[in-house]
């Protein structure tokens, strides 16, 4: 305790020293006068909108050969992929030899197209190309369609440019071209493109596009209704299209076959059991019961009856039926 005043004094002294700020720099009046004389204003750089001058960028100019190479880059589909696209009628509904779609997307889209084919009388073939790509000029799309899609089931063929759905082109197989007007084809394509543009990612765009075009094909089918289905003429052509089985479909088919196999016997058995129960119920309800007519001698002078049965009193809950079972005269009851 003796050192307490010393400590307090030391603390206050240190605090007072810490609170003292260092002195601001001070202009040399002579230097300032010289600068102001040449037009300099302190802080003027922050008071103007003109950008602070920067050093010019040193950009390397492209070389002539590089510019020439850029001009050479062609958007056409590489020649090595052309046979896979246009050499024959596609074996699957989704044609993507360049592998533009990821395997998972390819599988999902193909699964959808297979489903569409199973549900619709018009097949949907989709050729997937890059968004910037062009079909080589020596390939005539109409000729391809006529060559590969004249036979078999009617089909809608779409050249779809991944990431650029607005560039998509639609063709109909010759068997239905006359029945579906060009305007209707255009509307189908337009609505599908609009649906595709609701999404940003190319993989989602193609999904939306296919769903919408499938719906529009349904309406085309409705338009065709009334006329014979062209695909029925040649079922072998339909079989030519290989449809990879989707996961679980084999089990589903097995179950369907099993159900078909046992459906009839099961239904027969259930019907039989129900019939037996119904007959039993009907017999029980409609049964008639008779009593043998036995000769009974009249009693107590009664011509029709002397069968005096029980009498029960319901005057009080304290007198339950169990206590009334012995039907005896009052004078025989205990008080």
């Amino acid at each position, binding site marked *: 305790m003796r050192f307490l005043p010393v400590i307090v004094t030391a603390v206050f002294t240190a605090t007072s020293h810490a609170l003292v700020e260092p002195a601001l720099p001070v202009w040399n009046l002579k230097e300032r006068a010289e600068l102001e004389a040449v037009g300099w204003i302190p802080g003027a750089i922050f008071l103007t909108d003109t950008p602070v001058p920067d050093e010019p960028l040193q950009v390397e100019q492209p070389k002539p050969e590089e510019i020439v190479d850029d001009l050479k880059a062609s958007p056409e589909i590489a020649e090595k992929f052309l046979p896979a696209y246009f050499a024959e009628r596609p074996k699957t509904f989704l044609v993507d030899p360049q592998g533009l779609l990821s395997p998972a997307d390819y599988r999902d889209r193909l699964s959808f197209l297979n489903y569409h084919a199973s549900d619709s009388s018009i097949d949907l073939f989709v050729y997937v190309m890059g968004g910037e790509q062009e079909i080589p000029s020596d390939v005539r799309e109409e000729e391809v369609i006529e060559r590969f899609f004249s036979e078999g089931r009617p089909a809608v063929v779409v050249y779809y440019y991944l990431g650029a759905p607005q560039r998509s082109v639609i063709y109909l197989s010759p068997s239905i071209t006359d029945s579906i007007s060009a305007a209707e084809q255009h509307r189908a394509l337009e609505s599908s493109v609009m649906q595709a543009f609701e999404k940003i990612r190319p993989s989602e765009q193609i999904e939306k596009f296919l769903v919408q075009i499938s719906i529009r094909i349904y309406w085309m089918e409705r338009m065709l209704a009334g006329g014979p289905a062209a695909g029925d003429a040649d079922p072998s052509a339909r079989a030519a299209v290989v449809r990879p089985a989707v996961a679980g479909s084999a089990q589903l088919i097995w179950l369907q076959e099993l159900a078909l196999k046992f459906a009839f016997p099961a239904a027969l058995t259930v019907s039989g059991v129900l019939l037996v129960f119904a007959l039993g119920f009907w017999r029980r309800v409609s049964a008639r019961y008779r009593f043998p007519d036995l000769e009974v001698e009249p009693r107590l*002078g009664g011509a029709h*009856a002397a069968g005096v049965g029980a*009498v029960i009193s319901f005057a009080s809950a304290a007198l339950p039926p169990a206590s009334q079972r012995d039907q005896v005269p009052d004078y025989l009851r205990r008080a």
Partner: protein
Amino acid sequence: MKCPRCVQRIHRAAASCPHCGFTLADADACFGEEEVRIRSLTDSAGILRRGDREKVELAMERISRRFPQVFVAIYTGSLGEVANIRQFGFWLLNRSAFEDVPVEKPNEVGILITIDPESKAAGMVFGYLLDPFLEESDTFECLSRAHAYWLEGRYAEGILRVLKHLDGILRKRSRQARRDPEHFERKVTPPAQMGDLVRRIRAGHRAVIQQDETVEVVP
């Protein structure tokens, strides 16, 4: 079988109660000897509502349909303090003519349920056709089913319970009678007379003697 007045057992062919001498004439003296014309469902006490009446009538009709020989009648009324519900039921089934019951169904095939809401008592009487087949305990079981309902004044529900149980008992008795008719025949066969017994003893209980005996009696 019991006497409606003294509730003592009486034998099968008693012209009057051997204990108290009761006969139908005594009941006539109390309730009148004229024939009474009523319907099979007579609600003199007014304890059944319109909807209830229809339900009860349906249940009665169901029994008549299922047992073509039988009909059920229900009478509700205040009998007063003096009247005995047993004697009244016995008298009513013998003296009433049911207007809505077909003529081919005499009162012998009837089952009468009597309810007196004033004295809070109910009884059941049946005709001679059902005499071999129904026991007093059967009728007691039927009435017991309604006890809880009648305690609360729910007469229609109680009656429906009685009729449902009665339906079950009649079906059971009918099946028993079809399987073993002799059982019920024995119940109505007149009791053996002393002379018959002596003759059987002398004949050594042989069946042949019956034939001889018949031969003797015929001339």
